[in-house]
């Protein structure tokens, strides 16, 4: 699925929750629980996403030109949030990630049910993911 298609799928899933805040938060927490935990060896300072109130660790790999993120967090809601981004970005080319526009947050009204602080943290996660993708892009360019 493309980045755009995955976003539409997420929007459709959240539509089923009919904007109920409690259900939306619970759903995010469920998503978070399904995200495999990062091994302790990767939960290190340099993998922490700065700008998040909760602790978020993020690592990126490049496999056959495609980007794969893994992440973990100490809070279930944040884990759910980062799992959405992983679902959207994983398996895409670095340039697709760098050039992507994320519109699903607005469509599902995310800032209403996670609040400003978490929304800012969420923006930091996206920024960090794009930075990783940009680095892969540059290193690929060097190789070529």
């Amino acid at each position, binding site marked *: 699925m493309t980045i755009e298609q995955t976003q539409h799928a997420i929007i459709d899933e959240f539509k089923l929750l009919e904007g109920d*805040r*409690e259900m*939306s938060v*619970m759903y995010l927490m469920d998503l978070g629980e399904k995200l495999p935990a990062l091994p302790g060896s990767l939960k290190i300072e340099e993998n922490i996403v700065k700008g998040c109130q*909760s602790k978020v660790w993020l690592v990126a790999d490049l496999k056959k030109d495609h980007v794969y993120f893994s992440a973990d967090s*100490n809070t*279930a*809601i944040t884990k759910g949030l980062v799992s959405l981004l992983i679902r959207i970005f994983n398996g895409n080319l670095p340039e697709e990630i760098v050039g992507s526009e994320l519109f699903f947050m607005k469509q599902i009204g995310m800032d209403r*049910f996670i609040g400003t602080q*978490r929304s800012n943290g969420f923006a930091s996660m996206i920024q960090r993911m794009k930075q990783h993708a940009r680095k892969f892009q540059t290193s690929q360019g060097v190789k070529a």
Partner: protein
Amino acid sequence: MKSHAPVIELNVASVRKAFPVLDQTVNGHPLVYFDNAATTQKPTAVIQALVSYYSGYNANIHRGVHALAEKATRAFEDTREAARQFLNAPEKEEIIFVRGVTDAINLVAASYGKSTLRNGDEIILSALEHHSNIVPWQLAAEATGASIRVIPVGDSGELDMTAYEDILGPRTRIVAVNHASNSLGTVNPIASIIKKAHAVGAKVLIDGAQAAAHLDIDVQKLDCDFYCISGHKMYGPTGAGVLYGKRELLENMPPYQGGGEMIKEVAFEKTTFNDLPYKFEAGTPNIADVVALKAAFAFINSLGKENIRTHENDLLEYADEKLLTVKGVRLVGTAANKVSVQSFLVDGMHHFDVGQLLDARGIAVRTGHHCTQPLMDRYGIEGTVRASFAVYNTRAEIDQMVEAINRVSSLRR
């Protein structure tokens, strides 16, 4: 099971009517405001005092000869007298208006601390302190070569008074502790802390941020050297607080900030400073909020601290009892003597997540370390969920919170 005597002195329904903000729904549920230790809501009288000032007699105070300046000055100084009475301070001149407790402690640490501390001197703080009562002293210690010692806290959240006596000594110059803990609610035995400090010749500052709305304060009976309160945590406006200091200390302290109002005469060669309290009130003060603070004192006085305390104690006991019926809930802070603050954790859930889920049901609590990281470290936790009650809260609201936590914790298992 403890019995809960009905509170007859306070008519909570009519108290609630004085707080317009309470009458609203949040996320489709009636607002339950349990974040009072962070800031309380404001009664109509306080809001009205702000409106009256700005719409009726806004003017810069002191030195003015015109009618509005006269009226504003009188209102400003009336609050000083009300604050004096509220704290039972001997003199009006010992009441300094500040932005709040943080500002007050910074003033004392920078002025009294830096001018009197010497290399090797000791400042005693407690493990229960808010960062506001830690960091200003660290700055003063760093500047003077003094060091900081800490009264440890036990598992229930009570200070270890034996350890306090052990660390008190001939090098102790200042003891700075809170009257009540913002994270755990513990009411500290400050009368005894002050007495023991004075016995070794140390001065004592009491952070009264969490006490002002709940406990009787009598600075003469306590014989404390400094006592500070924040207006916004006692139904008053933000940005207006009070520092009480003993005259002899304030007289000898150098000014904290320079500017207008705090001077007698200025020449480029030398400036003579104004008398107390103006020496410590540089620049145009926060007139409107100070004026409205008087209405907050009046509000508390009209209900009576004892009645407030009886009602809030009832809420705290009821909350503890109900919270403990929820599987997986652990109370943090179980001291025998507390103000109406209860921190807790829900098994297997991060406190941020609990807070977010409560918010979805219209319940406002605080989550995190509550600016007391050393205390959280002491308990090996990152933070807590904190519910703090005020005079307008009800048992029904506690039921609403406990029901939401029950739901959350059962769904998460």
